[in-house]
């Protein structure tokens, strides 16, 4: 009797979430797929979308700017995720040995995590400023560079600037997740390995890593997905420049929507972003699986 009542309530409890999901996720995704096969422009919005088949996709694959944006986004994702995971793990390993100071470090870690990406972007923009920025000042003061580095306007440095800002915002949080992963490692395994003569590097890779793998995979999966959709940070740091060298896929898609009013072509780009995100998820199968268990 009670069990039946409980089951019914269980199903009813899902209804609000399912409604929200259908209205704000499922319908928009289907609509984007549909619009990607249409000619649909802000300028002629009254005519509605007109079916044009694969024309938007054909345009997309021959669009040099799309390839530039795709290359930038993939490269940025790969470098930032690897760098942030390794740095996060290194910080976590050291934090794991800290005593009283760990609480302080944990508190500080939350600052980059909680402030808006827009604020951290503006902050770094001010630090990277060419003539009056503090970074160039320090670099010249210490003699590391002779002239002012054009952090945001030189295409070689703009990538680095975005990477530095992203690392500042993400590594602290990543190290917290890695620290929680380290906590799941059974100390008795490590002792046993030590007795058997394993050194620290060996026991880290042979014992700690396999224990932490489930948590690390999920953390890295979400980081990869988020890194691939980078938008806010670039918007306030370089706005995609110089000469479109730091235009991410999301920035490029939104430029199509806003500057050109080309909603059909923008939808095709959005579908591309969607498909690549799903491919990333498939690459992290184990992470996906662990999220599908209660």
């Amino acid at each position, binding site marked *: 009797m*009670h*069990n039946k*009542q409980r*089951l019914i*309530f*269980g199903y009813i*409890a*899902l209804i*609000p*979430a399912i409604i929200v*999901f259908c*209205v*704000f*996720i499922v319908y*928009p995704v289907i*609509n*984007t797929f549909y*619009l990607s096969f249409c000619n649909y422009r802000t300028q002629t919005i009254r005519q509605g979308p007109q079916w044009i088949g694969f024309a938007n996709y054909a345009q997309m694959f021959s669009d040099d700017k799309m390839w530039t944006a795709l290359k930038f986004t993939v490269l940025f994702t790969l470098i930032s995720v690897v760098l942030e995971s390794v740095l996060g793990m290194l910080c976590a390993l*050291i934090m794991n*040995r*800290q005593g009283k*100071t760990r*609480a302080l*470090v*944990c508190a*500080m870690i*939350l*600052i980059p995590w*909680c402030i*808006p990406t827009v*604020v*951290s972007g503006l*902050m770094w923009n*001010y*630090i990277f400023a060419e003539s*009056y920025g503090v970074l160039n000042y320090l670099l010249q003061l210490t003699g590391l560079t002779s002239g002012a580095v054009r952090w945001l306007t030189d295409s070689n440095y703009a990538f680095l600037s975005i990477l530095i800002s992203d690392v*500042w915002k993400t590594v602290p*949080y990543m190290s*917290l*997740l890695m620290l*929680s*992963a380290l*906590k799941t490692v059974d100390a008795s395994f490590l002792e046993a390995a030590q007795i058997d003569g394993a050194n620290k590097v060996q026991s880290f890779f042979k014992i700690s890593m396999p224990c932490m793998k489930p948590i690390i995979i*999920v953390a890295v999966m979400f980081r990869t*997905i988020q890194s691939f*959709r980078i*938008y806010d940070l670039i918007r306030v740091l370089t706005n995609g420049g110089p000469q479109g060298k730091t235009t991410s896929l999301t920035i490029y898609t939104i430029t199509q*929507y806003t500057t050109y009013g080309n909603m059909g072509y*923008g*939808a095709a780009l959005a*579908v591309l*972003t*969607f498909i690549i*995100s*799903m491919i990333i*998820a498939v690459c992290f199968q184990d992470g*996906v699986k662990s999220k*599908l*268990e*209660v």
Partner: protein
Amino acid sequence: MQAVHSKPKSTVVKNIGLGVFTVLFVLMIVAPFLWLLLAAFKTGKELYSMPVQILPSGFNFQNFADAFKMQPLASYIVNSLIVAILSTVLIIIIASLVSFALARTQIKGKRLVLLMLLSISLLPPVTILNPIYLMMSNLKMMNTTYGLALVLVAIELPTAAWYLMSFFQTIPDALEESAMIDGANVVTIFCRILMPLVAPGVFTVSIMTFIAVWNNYLFASVLNPSKKARTVTVALTMYAGETTTPWNTIAAAAIVSCVPLVIMVLICQKRIVSGMVDGAVKG
């Protein structure tokens, strides 16, 4: 013998190493933010002086006054507050219900619901951006706080549900069973017994959700572009003019926009850290 002698020496080296790391790590995290804070008190002259002037000449609050004068920052803060509170309340209600169903009932199709949550968080926001924009303008919900809040409910729901689920799972079954024997129905059990027990978790998740919604830029900039409905994060990007960038005013506005978050986080840091850790360990 040798081992006994070498041990204290290496711990001293280790402690120094740890100390140096701690100082460097904290400095790297705090210094950029501190630099922004200092800029908020600098006059225009101090801001661009060469060699760089590190400290402002005093607590100069002119920049804060300018920040509120150049744009109606106060009303943008109110907008952000309404959106964040509305979203957080809705998310907590919906996510609590979902987490209850997943963690404490034997319903079928749990994997499907989990797949739904996972697919929301894997979905790039740009994929749904334009249809949501079109939908909101058709429904006359553009430039409204509740419209933006509803969209962000969908976006931030999975994270909240995952965290809450780990809290629901920690409650022992015995508590519920005894209430059931006393004749309480499932709704009463949910509201009167389970929710108070997960209240600490709800508190932590509320703060994390509030921060996520407050910080949103993409949807806020697309759905609420009008001057009346703008949120703080969007306003921050609009202080820069065509030719000049008043960094001290921007810094002041940025500090105003995130000081509430920083204070909130520092007060509740233990709960947030343990909440994050539990969420990660739960998977």
